[in-house]
């Protein structure tokens, strides 16, 4: 271990504290605003701790916009998209990790390139296609878009997980006469289970948080997802009822934060496994 001077350590703690303040203060302010009564929000000298904390904003938020329904829509869209995405991505990731043929090379190229495309170039044709299929303002259409949208990152993570599985087991299965599909289903997939779960959770969060596609594809409040409904709180004039806005925004964050806390280590691990090798 290297010895570090006391003054250096002190400076490091000071810097760390500054980072903590920068990272945490907007979130703390959101929580503080969510619990303030209207009268305190109107005051010219807002305080960090609400003098007279209240749950009125939460009640009012549910009255103003169909939050529960929106959360339900978000749940359906995100859950379906995440499940479909991992079910179809896992076998493809396996082939991409183990074969170096043209398809897997092209798929790898697509994963990289798809990160760079401005969504507007994709969404205009998708909008026209889905319109012809009468899938505008439908969760089904949105789910289809989310599946393809979450595939690149899912593949990226899963390829990393497959590479971590030793090939000896597959060779043993091959000696026993198992085919490619059989080997995948009975030998590789079970070993990948933790990675698949982490990938699904990540796909869930990205879909749960997604805004742009939902804004374009969903037209009526009954169909809209949580981020779109949250944006409706702001209104077109940008004049918002601050309390309920803060309360609703705070509630919308909780599922993502919980899931993220669970899978944080796996995500960073998976992302880096891909990044280091790429």
């Amino acid at each position: 271990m290297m010895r570090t001077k006391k003054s250096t350590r002190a400076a490091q703690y000071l810097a760390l504290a500054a980072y903590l303040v920068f990272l945490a203060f907007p979130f703390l302010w959101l929580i503080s605003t969510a619990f303030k009564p209207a009268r305190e929000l109107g005051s010219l000298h807002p305080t960090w701790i609400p003098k007279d904390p209240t749950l009125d904003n939460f009640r009012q938020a549910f009255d103003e916009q169909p939050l529960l329904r929106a959360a339900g829509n978000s749940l359906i869209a995100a859950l379906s998209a995440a499940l479909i995405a991992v079910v179809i991505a896992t076998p493809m990731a396996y082939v991409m990790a183990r074969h170096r043929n043209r398809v897997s090379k092209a798929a790898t190229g697509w994963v990289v390139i798809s990160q760079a495309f401005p969504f507007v170039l994709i969404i205009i044709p998708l909008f026209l296609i889905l319109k012809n299929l009468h899938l505008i303002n439908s969760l089904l259409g949105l789910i289809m878009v989310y599946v393809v949208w979450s595939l690149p990152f899912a593949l990226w993570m899963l390829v990393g997980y497959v590479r971590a599985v030793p090939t000896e087991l597959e060779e043993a299965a091959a000696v026993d006469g198992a085919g490619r599909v059989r080997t995948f289903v009975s030998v590789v997939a079970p070993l990948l289970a933790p990675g698949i779960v982490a990938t699904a959770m990540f796909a869930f969060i990205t879909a749960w948080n997604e805004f742009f596609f939902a804004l374009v594809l969903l037209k009526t409040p009954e169909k809209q997802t949580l981020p779109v409904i949250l944006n409706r709180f702001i209104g077109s004039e940008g004049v918002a009822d601050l309390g309920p806005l803060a309360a609703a925004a705070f509630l919308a964050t909780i599922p993502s934060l919980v899931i993220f806390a669970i899978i944080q280590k796996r995500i960073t691990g998976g992302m880096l496994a891909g990044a280091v090798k790429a």
Partner: protein
Amino acid sequence: MTLATATKRSARGVPGRGPTDHGAWFLVLPALIPILVLSVGPLLYGIALAFTDSQSGRTEPTQWVGALNFQDLLHDTLFWDSFRIGLLWAFGVTVPQFFLALGLALLLNQPLRMRWLARALAIIPWAMPEVVVGIMWRLVYHPDAGVLNETLSNLGLGEGKDWLTGTATALFAVIVVGIWAGMPQTTVALLAGLQNTPRELHEAAAMDGAGAWRRFTTVTWPAIKPIALAITALNFIWNFNSFALVYVLTQGGPGGRTRLPMLFAYEEAFRYGQFGYAAAMGCVMVAVISVILAFYLVGRLKGADES
């Protein structure tokens, strides 16, 4: 040479089975079909649309117009304004964010107490929906009920600024939010690079009497350079293409001061129904991004030559 061939073969997986076997196709198709139908297809369709007069709600059929949309774009000063704003925003977010994230990653790599708390907090912006991040910062920047103006006035540094609606401050204000929102990914990537750097190298350098700066330039930086370059190129591209954050914060206002190219193209397509014209904007954005990617790749190849 023999070694290279051997590793290549083992990368193919189980020996004795060519890449042509049908099982592989069976495993690939469930993902390949949606990718082709819902991603590659629309992308090509989108590029084709850029050469048409496609509009929403038109009765007469869509026609090819050649490069007309691109000629119009060339003279569209509003588009070039938004383009300039997009580049300013992408630089303004990516560069400071990189240095801030590098600082945080170096700190988190030290055996400090409270490190776990910092790691947990550093992740929060990542887990939050961009819409919530936008709403949150609207509350921070709020002229009366916001914490920023209150703190500034308590410190005697002026009061009542309309950060997001003032023409002089709006772009700066959204850039700060962009920096905050993207800190986690950048920090995590750099931290991983740091943790892959062998500690012994550091200790050896320290024994040779290298100071902190020299250790950074000779040991740390070479080790994290590939990740640093990759994350910076990606951040720049993501930022240039971003939409939700600024849409929620300012909707592109005041007077277009924060109208990123994506916001402009979105309005053109879904407010005014100019699909062909908006697709042409998308193509121009892709062209610029390709140039950036090319610079990045050339940089990487040069780096590979050196090492």
